[in-house]
């Protein structure tokens, strides 16, 4: 490679402050971050350190107080709300920690929704939704509503919905946070296989070191700042990391 490829996501000097005066809280402070195409990046850190806020900034869900976000080389600050919404719709797949699904819609409807919002024909949208649900292993749960699905199944539906538009990057904010370890691991494995098989770019926030170890790179946050970065070159390094973190 002779030239650096354009990073899928690039945040430079990102700062987000909530409130003002004495009550002001700086949730994210002077963060520089880049995610390359096909990379699986995990963000870790203690509660309240600003992980969610950072993810929101990068996904265009929240504007930074200062600094800039580039997605695929385009500056989010230059976009009006509609452009930004289209960017979220087509280029970024987002999975929240919980309450990801619209409770009156079935699994396949939840997944097909972004396609329909984008103007695809309902039949095509449905076919595509079914295909993606199959990929996450839910072909037998297509017509269930969220209340009839387990937590892990719900998160897989959310993942399918985030993937259905074939986004440039998948962002997941503690997608395993509400799940037991085994189910959480299954979700993480699913993400890993997406990266390996389809070259999907993934940015994931997690508390769980084991889950984080599936990533190519782990960023550590503390008090709104990125304080450390680790590359998982080999499985052994991962094992070591887990041992270290679990102390």
């Amino acid at each position, binding site marked *: 490679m002779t030239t650096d490829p354009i990073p899928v996501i690039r945040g430079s000097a990102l700062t987000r402050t909530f409130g003002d005066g004495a009550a002001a809280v700086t949730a994210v402070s002077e963060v520089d971050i880049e995610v390359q195409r096909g990379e699986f990046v995990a963000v870790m850190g203690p509660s309240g350190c600003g992980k969610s806020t950072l993810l929101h900034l990068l996904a265009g869900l929240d504007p930074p107080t200062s600094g800039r976000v580039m997605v695929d080389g385009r500056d989010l600050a230059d976009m009006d709300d*509609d452009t930004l*919404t*289209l960017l*979220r*719709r087509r280029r970024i797949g987002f999975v929240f920690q919980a*309450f990801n699904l619209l409770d009156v819609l079935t699994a396949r409807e939840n997944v097909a*929704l972004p396609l*329909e*919002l984008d103007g695809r024909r309902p039949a095509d949208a449905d076919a595509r939704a079914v295909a993606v649900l199959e990929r996450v292993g839910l072909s037998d749960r297509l017509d269930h509503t969220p209340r009839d699905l387990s937590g892990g199944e719900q998160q897989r539906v959310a993942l399918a919905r985030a993937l259905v538009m074939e986004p440039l990057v998948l962002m997941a904010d503690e997608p395993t946070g509400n799940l037991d370890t085994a189910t959480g691991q299954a979700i993480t494995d699913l993400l890993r296989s997406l990266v390996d098989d389809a070259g999907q770019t993934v940015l994931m926030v997690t508390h769980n070191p084991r889950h984080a170890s599936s990533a190519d790179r782990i960023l550590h946050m503390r008090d709104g700042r990125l304080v450390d970065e680790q590359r998982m070159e080999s499985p052994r390094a991962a094992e070591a990391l887990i041992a270290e973190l679990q102390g």
Partner: protein
Amino acid sequence: MIVQRYSRRYMRRRPGRTMLSVSGIAIGVAAIFGISLTIGTTRNAYQRMFSELAGRAELEIVASGYGAFDGDLTRLMANAPGVAAAVPVAVAAAALTSAGGWSAIQVLGVDPSRDGLVRDYRFYRGRMFTDGNEVVIPVALADRTGVKVGDALGVMGSAGSVSLRVSGLLEGGGAAAFNGGAVAFTSLAAAQRLNGGAVGITSIQVVVERDARPEEVQRSLQSIVPAGMLVQTPAARAALGEAALFGTERGLGVLSVVSLVAGAFVILNSFLMGLSERTRSFALMRALGMTRSQVVRMLMGEAALVGAIGAVVGMGLGMALSVVLNAIVAGVLGAALPPIRLTWPPVALSVLLGPGVAVAATALPARRFSVRSPLELLGDRRAAGLTERPSAWLPGAGLACLLFPILVTAALVWNRVGSERLVSLLAPAMASGLIGAALLVPGIFAWLCRPLERGLTRVAGTEGRLAIRDLRRHRIRSSLTIAVLAICVVVSFGFGNSMMISVDDVRQWVDHVTPYDYFARRLWPDVGTMSAPTMPESLEGVLRSLESVDVVDKLCWAATRVNGVVVMSEIGSYSGAGPIAQEVAEGDAAGLYERLESGEVALGSVLAKKLNVRPGQTVTVQTRAGQRPMRVAGIISSYTGGGMTLHLAWPVGVDTLGVSGVHVWMLRAAPGRRQALSDALRRLGVEHGFHVQSMEQFRATVDGAMSGVVAALWVIIAFVFVVASLGTVNTLTMNVIEQMRQLGLMRAVAMTRRQVRRMIVSAAAAMALTSLVPGVAMGFLLAFAMGASHHAVTGYHVDMTIHYSLLAVTVIGAVATAVAAALVPAQRAASMPIIEAIRYE
């Protein structure tokens, strides 16, 4: 597709809320639809009646007072350029006499050899009449009266009773539908005979040549007819009936607008609840790529759907309402109105208004909602403050909206601007006023919070204070419910009060103007045509010769024109002071009848207002000898003909308008001889063909009609309160659901079920009490404005009395409705399992 499915499933999941939204719109639409259908039916009834009668004729030639004229004119007309056919018609007002009683019928004398050029006669059975002893009637009428072909039909005309043989029965529709099917066709001569030998015809109906333009033919015919004759479209005759309905239409118009505004508030309230409940869902949809305009479109789609369903339901309700209203209007006017007929304009109006109002009421909050960022929505379950903090501009806008009705009312009182235009502003002004009052509600509520809290704490203890706190936390939601309750109060008190005033006024009028014991008449004239069979004037001698009689007066009505406007003329002879002096609104009451006898006229107050004429001025009256200037002696507040009346003394009327018969004899018994007079009159009635009605019976008829009005008023008020109670249930239920967890905690800590119930009922009472402030204030304004508009239209003053009993009923009704409505959510909150409530998300 999925978006629509989402909306639909959400609505199904919240059936109560959806029902409330739908009923909000349904009520508004029902009022508008029902009322415009009633008005349209009654109004079109007259137009349609005359058009159907005219068949293919586009024009008709009439004497300008609709009296009889020489039939020779027909030949002249038939030969005029552009005329394909011209046929004579002689209409005779008559009564169908059967054992079961008398009913009004219009007998049409036509020329059987030529009438087919204008009208189609489709025979169900039998054939056309061949001479003046035969008659053809609609089959429906025959069924109703049990008459068959070949039977004799008893008909009482102005000239007395005749018997005609039925030669044929007509299928319904067309001319057979004239006068609600109460029609009979016979020869010109027979009709003239019924009319008392008045030779001549009452109209010439003209079919225009295929390639001629009716307007041009109308102009050219007008230039060749003799003076005093008029060429017009058949529907033009409807003017008289329409004038009579004007007052009723005005009141109903205001009511329908008020209902629509109430409906808008109901739907706004439930819409906002739907938003706040689904904030998280919308946050999610926004996060995964729903644009602002897609959000707005989705919300508007939901509103439009609710509006459309509401419109359909409302039209159903409106049909029922219009049947009731039609019966009431018919009762009040004493006219035979045709059954309600579905027409397109009200349907189109409802189809537009239902979704339109729903969308208009929700457009602003939907737009404001859509601009919230997804994260804002995610962070705030209550729509990021949208439904919580009233905007700062509300009080200002509220006061501005209130200015409109205040200005209109003030202008009506001083009456500087053309009054009819002002009166037509009344409905929009009241709508604006209601919106203004609603916008002020959050302010009023904030201002009342402290005293309410103190009062409720005294009555209900801590629960009262907690109730106020809950209402305050959801100020917009509470305010909207208060606004709906306030509109109920306005309808109940303001509208009710002005209606009661009118009812009292009519009752007073009956007591004042009729110092008689008995009426003798063949039939009361119908409002639309003012036609009824008359009795010969010669009967007066017979009546006067009765030894039990003290006073014999007579009345007769006929159409004519004053300054070109079609009016009803009331020609009467009054002995002594007579009733007419009692009704004088302007001018000298004492000498009025003498002045009328000397050839002056009096005008009904509505007509005087419309023509802008005062006593002492001169008007141009269409007489049988052409236009004639006549001096106005006074203005009279009259209920007949919607106040569009011309009053003449008997000899003057006979002289100028050529009336020849008496519609009603009005009689007073000699002291102590009432029974004797009654007996004598009944005997005479059999001999001379009239019915006797005692003053008590007459008053009972009027009272019956007025009771109908009052009953309808209560129905409407009850209806409106039902909606308000639904709104209250909704608001309180929403408060309960949102505070499940807190309520659970409170229950866990110490609160008994009864305390929970008391807290929720207190909240309802607080809303009802708050609603009384803007409600009663607006109610006064409405009552006052309606009173002033009454004056502006009719030209006479009605005392503005406050019916305190109605006020009391309203106050109690509002509080009771709210408290009753609170019982459902109160029970729900009290009976929930504590642990589940605490876990509730």
